[in-house]
């Protein structure tokens, strides 16, 4: 299955400035592994040292959050788009 992975602006620096990368995969995990095979520096940004998707990384298959489906086992089909979106959060240590 040929799927298109779309990277956010910041992560393109780790993928030869590419915004869209086409890989062959049957599920989200395979798609990400295929992505890392092409651009290994992305791995450290997206996966924790134990190989799990970092909690502040969101992955969507088309419009659907992969976490609401089967996570990395979420199936993908020909023509699907896998969107990687960083969770952007933060805040001060002290409250009011």
């Amino acid at each position, binding site marked *: 299955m040929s799927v298109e992975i*779309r990277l*956010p*602006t*910041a*992560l*393109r*620096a*780790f993928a030869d*400035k590419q*915004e869209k990368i086409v890989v062959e995969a049957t599920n989200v995990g395979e798609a990400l592994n295929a992505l890392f095979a092409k651009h290994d520096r992305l791995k450290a*940004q997206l996966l924790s040292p134990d190989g799990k998707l970092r909690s*502040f990384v*969101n992955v*969507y298959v088309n419009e659907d959050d992969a976490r609401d489906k089967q996570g990395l086992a979420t199936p993908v089909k020909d023509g699907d788009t896998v*969107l990687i*979106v*960083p*969770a*952007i*959060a*933060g*805040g*001060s*240590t*002290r*409250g*009011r």
Partner: protein
Amino acid sequence: MSLKVNRALEQIVVETCEKAYPDEGCGLLIGPTPDDFIAMKRPVVVDEARPLPNGWDSSAKTNRYLIDPRLLAKVEEELSGTGRGVVGFFHSHPNAPAWPSPFDLMMAWPCLSYWIVRVDGGKIADSRSWQRTEDGRSFVEEEIYLEG
């Protein structure tokens, strides 16, 4: 290392943060995608500041902010192929220093600018911009260069 913005954009950032007080305000910094995005010495040019709602749970908005990933995805899609992109984010620290907190560091992405505005009593008290190092261990301050 510097963040180049014009005064009108700075005003949008400051007003957003002051209006959000005592909660944290936040938004996107958009500009031309640099050729050498990964090099921390590059100047970051911002040509648009886009305020977004603080999506954090209402119980902790005074010291937390969250940008809805679906909104961010929409903006990335809008900017796709234009040569512009999300080059950073701004947020406020109500009654707290404009230095990144440990939580800011934990959540930060490399190659992006994080502009933090200190707001005391509803008025700006300090404003600083930072970039996370690629190894994720620290932030480095970058000069905010005001043009126009």
